[in-house]
C-alpha cells in the first residue's frame, strides 16, 4: 500500500447519478475504512485536532477504526460531536482537519471526513446507543431553530440535565440540513432523521410550526412559560438578489426557493403536491456551495445547467469536491461573467441573461482578487430559468421583537465569540444568525460554546446574577 495515497471512496457514476437524487458518495466499507485508518501517523501533537472547530479526538478515533473497534470509535467522536454523520458529509475538511494533516505535505491527507462518516453510519446501522445523560436541574432552556447550531446546543444542555425545548419555524426540524442541503449530499430519511432522533432521545422536545418573534416572543417564553435562558440559532434565511432589471420576471428564483421546494417539500417526487418548475436551460448565478447544490439539483430535474460566476475558478467559494462533482455531472461553468440584466419575453418570462465579462483586479477585503467589468463586453445568453445563489442574510423576526437585542448593520445578532452572550441577559446566539451564512460545523461550534456558557450562567444563579443589581 502506498501511504501517500488515499483509499478512494466509491461514488455513484456521474451518468447514473444525474438521473436520481440518491447520495453521490457511497462511503467506505469496513475494509476500506481500516485500510485508510492505517495511513494515520497518530501524531503526538495532532494538528488535525487543532483545526477542528469542535476538537474531535481525531487520531484516537482513527486508531479504533484501524483496530476494527468501530463502536469505540463512535464513542470517541460522540464526546465532542453530536452530528458526526452530517459533519462527515458536509464539513470543509480540506480547509480544517485534513488541511493540517502531516501526510498532506508530501502526499494526500488522511480522509478524516470519510472516516468520520463511516463510523457514524456504522454506529447508526448497528444501533449503537450513544446517549449519555447526567442528572440535572431540569431548568427550562429554549432553543430557537433546529439547524446545526440549535441541535448541538440543545443536545449538550440536555446531556447536562436541562429541560430543553427547540422551537422550529418550519414543519420539520433540521433547518438548513433539511431545506437547504440536497438529498444527494445529505440523505434526509436516514442520516438527518437519525441524528435528530438522537437529540430527542436525550430528552430534547421539538415544537415545530413555531416562529419565534411571531407565534411567541422570547420575552413571553421567559415571562409566561418559565424559560430561564434562550439560545438563538435561527440561521440566515433571507435570500439576496442582484437588484438588476428583469429580476422579477417569471422564472427567476432564489436558490432557497428551488432548494426548499425540492428538499423540504420533495417536489422532485410525483407523490408530493408541491410543484417545482425549471426550464430547459438554467443559469445559476453564484459560486458557493449553495450554487453548486442548486445547479446539481436543476441538472437532476432534467435541465441543461450553467454556473454564472463573476470571478475565476480559483476564487469559487464552493468546496473543491462540490465543484468537481458538478463538473463530472455536466454542469457548465461560465466564469468571469456577471449578469447585468434578465431578459424577458413578451409574456414576462425569462428568455435570457445579458452578461458582461469580468477580469480580476487588485485583491479586496476578502483577499480574493476583485472582479472588474470589461467595458463594452456585454453579450446575451439564452436561458429560460435563472436561479440566484448569491448568499443569504439573517431576517429580523427575532431581533425586531426582542427588546434590547443588539444587531449589526447586516442584521446579524451581536454575540460574544466565546460564549454567544448577546446584549440581553440570559439570551445567547450563534451560527449563521450571528455570522451570516457560514458552515454547518461553525454553527455547531457556536452551539457548543453557548451550551457551556448557558450552563455556567444558570449554575451561577441565572437571572440577575451576571449584572449588578440596582442598589448593590
Amino acid at each position, binding site marked *: 500500500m502506498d501511504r501517500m495515497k488515499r483509499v478512494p471512496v466509491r461514488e455513484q457514476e456521474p451518468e447514473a447519478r444525474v438521473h436520481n437524487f440518491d447520495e453521490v458518495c457511497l462511503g467506505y466499507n469496513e475494509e476500506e475504512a481500516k485500510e485508510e485508518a492505517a495511513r494515520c501517523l497518530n501524531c503526538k501533537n495532532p494538528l488535525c485536532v487543532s483545526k477542528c472547530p469542535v476538537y474531535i479526538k481525531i487520531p484516537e478515533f482513527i486508531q479504533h477504526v484501524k483496530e476494527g473497534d468501530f463502536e469505540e470509535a463512535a464513542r470517541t467522536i460522540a464526546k465532542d460531536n453530536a452530528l458526526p454523520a452530517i459533519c462527515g458529509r458536509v464539513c470543509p475538511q480540506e480547509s480544517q482537519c485534513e488541511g493540517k494533516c502531516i501526510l498532506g505535505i508530501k502526499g494526500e491527507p488522511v480522509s478524516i471526513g470519510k472516516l468520520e462518516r463511516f463510523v457514524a453510519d456504522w454506529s447508526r446501522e448497528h444501533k449503537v446507543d450513544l446517549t449519555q445523560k447526567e442528572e440535572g436541574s431540569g431548568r427550562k432552556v429554549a432553543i430557537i431553530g433546529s439547524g446545526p447550531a440549535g441541535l448541538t446546543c440543545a443536545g449538550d444542555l440536555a446531556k447536562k440535565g436541562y429541560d430543553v425545548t427547540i422551537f422550529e*419555524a*418550519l*414543519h420539520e426540524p433540521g433547518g438548513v440540513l433539511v*431545506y437547504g442541503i440536497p438529498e444527494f449530499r445529505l440523505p434526509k430519511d436516514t442520516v438527518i432523521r437519525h441524528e435528530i432522533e438522537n437529540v430527542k432521545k436525550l430528552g430534547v422536545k421539538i415544537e*415545530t*410550526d*413555531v*416562529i419565534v418573534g*411571531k*407565534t*411567541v416572543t422570547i420575552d413571553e417564553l421567559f415571562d409566561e412559560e418559565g424559560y430561564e435562558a434562550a439560545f438563538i440559532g435561527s440561521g440566515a*434565511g*433571507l*435570500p439576496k*438578489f442582484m*437588484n438588476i432589471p428583469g*429580476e*422579477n420576471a*417569471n*422564472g427567476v*428564483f*432564489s436558490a*432557497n*426557493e428551488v432548494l*426548499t*421546494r425540492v428538499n423540504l*417539500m*420533495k417536489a422532485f417526487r410525483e*407523490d*408530493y*403536491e*408541491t*410543484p417545482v*418548475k425549471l426550464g430547459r436551460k438554467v443559469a445559476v448565478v453564484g459560486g458557493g456551495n449553495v450554487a453548486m447544490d442548486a445547479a446539481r439539483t436543476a441538472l437532476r430535474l432534467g435541465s441543461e445547467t450553467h454556473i454564472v460566476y463573476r470571478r475565476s475558478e480559483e476564487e469559487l467559494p464552493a468546496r473543491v469536491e462540490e465543484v468537481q462533482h458538478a463538473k463530472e455531472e455536466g454542469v457548465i461553468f461560465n466564469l468571469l461573467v456577471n449578469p447585468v440584466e434578465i431578459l424577458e419575453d413578451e*409574456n*414576462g418570462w425569462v428568455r435570457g441573461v445579458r452578461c458582461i465579462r469580468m477580469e480580476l483586479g487588485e485583491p479586496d477585503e476578502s483577499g480574493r482578487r476583485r472582479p472588474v467589468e470589461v467595458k463594452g463586453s456585454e453579450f446575451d445568453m439564452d436561458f429560460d430559468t435563472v436561479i440566484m445563489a448569491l448568499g443569504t442574510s439573517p*431576517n429580523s*423576526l427575532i431581533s425586531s421583537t426582542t427588546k434590547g437585542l443588539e444587531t449589526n448593520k447586516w442584521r446579524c445578532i451581536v454575540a460574544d465569540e466565546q460564549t454567544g452572550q448577546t446584549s440581553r441577559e440570559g439570551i445567547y446566539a450563534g451560527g449563521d444568525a450571528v455570522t451570516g451564512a457560514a458552515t454547518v460545523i461553525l454553527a455547531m461550534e457556536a452551539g457548543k460554546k453557548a451550551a457551556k456558557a448557558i450552563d455556567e450562567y444558570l449554575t451561577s444563579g441565572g437571572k440577575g446574577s451576571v449584572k449588578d443589581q440596582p442598589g448593590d
Partner: protein
Amino acid sequence: MYRLLEKRLLATNIYYMKVEAPRIARSCLPGQFVIVKTDDKGERIPLTICDYDAQAGTIAIVFQTVGSSTYQMALLEEGNAFQDVVGPLGNPSDMTGEALEDLKKESILFIGGGVGTAPVYPQVKWLCEKGIASDVIIGARSKEQLILVEEMQKVAGNVYIATDDGTAGFHGMVTGRLKQLVQEEGKHYSKAIVIGPMPMMRAACQLTKELGIPTIVSINTIMVDGTGMCGACRVTVGGKVKFACVDGPEFDGHLLDFDEAIRRQGMYKTEEGRARLKELEREQGIQHSCGCGHGGDK
C-alpha cells in the same frame, strides 16, 4: 396536529373551518395569515385568518377550492386534523398600530371580493370592538357566492352588496357600487382597504385613485415558507422589491405593480394543473369559479 373543530360550506366551493391553534390564536391580529399543510405530502398553503379566539385557542380560516391542495383540504371533516398550521405570518394591519383617536377620525371603507371577504371580517370586527363603525362592500358573482354577509352586518356600519348578475344588491361590480356611493349618495371615505382577487383589487385601486381615496390592498401571493426565506412572494411597490410575507401582506394599492403581481401569481399554473382541475371538476362536480365580484377568471 391541529384539530378541525367546525366545518361549514359558506358558498359553492368556499369553506369555513375553525381550527384548534392556541399559540396562533393568542398572538394574531387582523391582517395576518397562516400557512396550513394537510398531511405529509401536501403543499404549504397560505390562507388569511378570518377570525380568532384567544380564550378558546381557535382560529378560523376560509378558503376556496381552486386546485388539488385546497381540494384535499376540503375533504377534511370535523374531528380530523391539519398536520401543520403555522403563524401568524405577515404584519398586522396598519390600523392596529394607529392611535385610537386618529382612527376615530377616519371613515373607513372595506371592499371584499369573493373569498377576500373573509380577511376583511376580522378587521371590521376589530374596529367595531374599539367602537368604530366602518362600511363594507361585499362583492360576488351571484347571490349564492356571497359569504359572511350576516356576520359582517353585526360588526359593520353599513354593508353594501354587489353581484355581477344582479341576484342580490347592486347589479354590477364592487367598483360600480363604490362609484355610486361616492358620486350619487354623497359618501366620503378617508381610507379604503380592498381584499380580493388581483384583477378586482387592481380595478378598485384605479377607481379609488381617481376618487382620491388612499387605499390599502392585502395580497395573497405564491410562497413556500412565509418567513422571508424563499422570495417567491416578491412584488414591486413604488419601484422597490418587497416580500409579501414579511413586508406585507398589506401594501399601498396605488403603488403596487399589479401587472407584475398577476403575472407572477400565474407562474405555477401549468397545462397539467389545468387538466387536473378539469378532471376534478368532472369527477367531483366541483366548479372552479372564483366569484370575486369582478367577473374575473382567477
